[in-house]
C-alpha cells in the first residue's frame, strides 16, 4: 500500500504491507516524518491510500463510501498526544459526549461512563474539568472516551508524548490492560523507554518503508 500526499516529492508510505492480528499490541516506531502517523490516518479513513488497500476487520476502508465512515469509526477508539478533550465539559461529560453523539441514551451513559472511568483509574474525579486534572489524568479521560464503546481497535498516536516518564508508564499499563480485554492496540511512538519496557511487536518505519518488524522487539 502506498500513500503519496499531493505536492510531496516522495511517498509518505512506500509500498508498505503489514498485517496485524486481532488482539495484538503493535508499536510503530521511527523518526519524525517517517510515515508513522500516516498509518493512523489511513486506519481512521481520514485519508485514502494512493495505491493499495487498507483492510480493517475484513472491510476495505480505502474505498469505503463516505456515509459509511461514521459507522466504521465507531469500531475504532483513538487517543492522541494532545488528549483532544472538550475544555468546558467534565471528565464524565467528555466520555458521555462520545456516547450521546452516536445516539446512545443518557441512561446508557449513566451506567457505562462511571464504569469506564473507574477502569482507567479516575474513580472520584468524574466531575473535574480537564484544567483541574493533570496531564496523565487527562489522557486517562481520553482513553476512557476511546474505550467506552468497546472498540475492536484502539489507535494511539504518541499518547505519552506530552507526559513525564512515570506518568507515561501508567498510561502504558492502562493500554496494556485494555489490550488484555481482547482489544487490538496500535500505537505510534518514538518513546524508546516504553517500547523497551513493553516488549511487544515493533514495526520500524523509515522514509516510508518498513525496515524492521519483530515480535517482542526493542527500540532501535
Amino acid at each position, binding site marked *: 500500500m502506498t500513500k503519496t500526499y499531493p505536492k510531496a516529492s516522495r511517498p509518505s508510505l512506500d509500498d508498505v504491507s503489514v498485517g496485524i492480528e486481532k488482539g495484538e499490541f503493535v508499536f510503530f516506531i521511527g523518526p519524525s516524518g517517517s510515515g508513522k502517523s500516516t498509518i493512523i490516518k489511513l486506519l481512521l479513513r481520514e485519508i485514502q491510500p494512493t495505491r493499495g488497500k487498507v483492510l480493517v476487520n475484513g472491510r476495505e476502508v480505502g474505498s469505503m463510501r463516505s456515509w459509511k*465512515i*461514521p*459507522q466504521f*469509526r465507531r469500531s475504532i477508539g483513538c487517543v492522541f498526544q494532545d488528549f*483532544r478533550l*472538550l475544555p468546558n465539559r467534565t471528565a464524565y461529560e467528555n466520555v458521555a459526549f*462520545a456516547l*450521546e*453523539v452516536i*445516539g446512545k441514551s443518557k441512561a446508557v451513559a449513566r451506567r457505562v461512563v462511571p464504569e469506564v472511568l473507574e477502569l482507567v483509574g479516575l474513580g472520584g474525579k468524574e466531575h473535574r474539568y480537564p484544567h483541574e486534572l493533570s496531564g496523565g489524568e487527562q489522557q486517562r479521560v481520553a482513553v476512557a472516551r476511546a474505550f467506552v464503546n468497546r472498540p475492536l481497535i484502539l489507535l494511539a498516536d504518541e499518547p505519552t508524548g506530552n507526559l513525564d516518564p512515570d506518568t507515561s508508564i501508567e498510561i502504558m499499563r492502562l493500554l496494556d490492560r485494555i489490550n488484555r480485554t481482547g482489544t487490538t492496540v496500535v500505537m505510534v511512538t518514538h518513546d524508546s523507554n516504553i517500547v523497551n519496557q513493553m516488549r511487544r511487536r515493533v514495526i520500524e518505519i523509515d522514509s516510508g518503508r518498513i525496515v524492521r518488524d519483530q515480535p517482542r522487539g526493542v527500540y532501535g
Partner: protein
Amino acid sequence: MRARYVLTEVFLGLWRNVTMTIAMIITMAVSLTMVGASLLMFWQVQDMKEWYYDKIEVSIYLKKDVTDEQRTAIEAAIKEDPLVEHYEYETSEQAYENFKQMFRDAPDMVSAVKPEYMPESFRISLKNPEQYQLAYDRYKDYPGISEIRDQRALVDKIFSILGGMQTVALAIAIGQGVAALLLVVNTIQVAAYSKRREVAVMKLVGASNWFIQAPFVLEAVFAGVIGALIAFGALAAAKAFLLDSGSLEALTDILLTVPWSRVFTTLPFLLGIAAAVNAVTGWVTLRFYVRV
C-alpha cells in the same frame, strides 16, 4: 433525546452569536418582505387584467359632419366583425349625459360643455382585448371616423407602473437576499469554528454526518423562518395600515383591494422559500467551505 440535543445546539448556536443572528434575521425579513410584495403585485396585476380587460372597450368616435350612409356602413361592418363581442351606439346626447354624470362634482366643467360638443361614438367590446390593433387597422380608413381610442392603452399604463414597482421590489429582494445568504454563510462558518473541538471529537467517535451538520443547517433554517414570519407581519401591517386605512388608501380605487386571503397565501411561499434557500446554503457552506 437526539432531537432535544440538536434543538439545544441550535438555540445555543444562535444565542452564542446573537448579533450576527439578528443581522441575519433582519436582512432576511427585508428581502422576504420584498419577495412577498412583488408576489402580491404579480397576483394583483393578473386579477386586474382580467377585471379590466373584461370591461374596457374600443371607442370609435365619429366626425361632427358624419353622414348617415357613413354611419350605417360603419355599423354594418361592426355587426359583421368576428372580433367584436358586442357594441353599443352612443349619441351626442347620451355622451353628454354620461359626461354630466361623471363630472357632477364639477358644475363649472359641465356648464362649459354643450351636448353638441360631444361626439357620437360606437363602443365596442372585443372578444379578445389584446386584438385591438387588428380592429384599429380594420376601421381606421372608414370615412366619417375622427378617432379610434383603446381604453386598454390607459390601463396598460397602470400595469406598466405596477410592473415597474414589481421589478424594483424584486431587485431589492435579490440584493437583500444575497446579503442575507452571505450572512448565513458567515454565521455558519463562525458557528463551525466555535464548535470545532466538538466537531472534531464527533467525527472521531463516529457521529453520523447529519447529526454533526443538522444543528448548523437548522440554525440557518430557524433564522429564515423567523425572517419569513417578520416579513409576513410587515405585509399584513402594510395592508392594514397603508392600503386599508392609510396614505395609500386612494390607490385601492384603481388597483382593486388586496384581499386578506391573498396576504395569507404569501405566508407558505415566504416560509418555504426561506427554509429551502437557507437549508441549501447552510448545507453547501458545510460541505464545500467548512468541511464539517
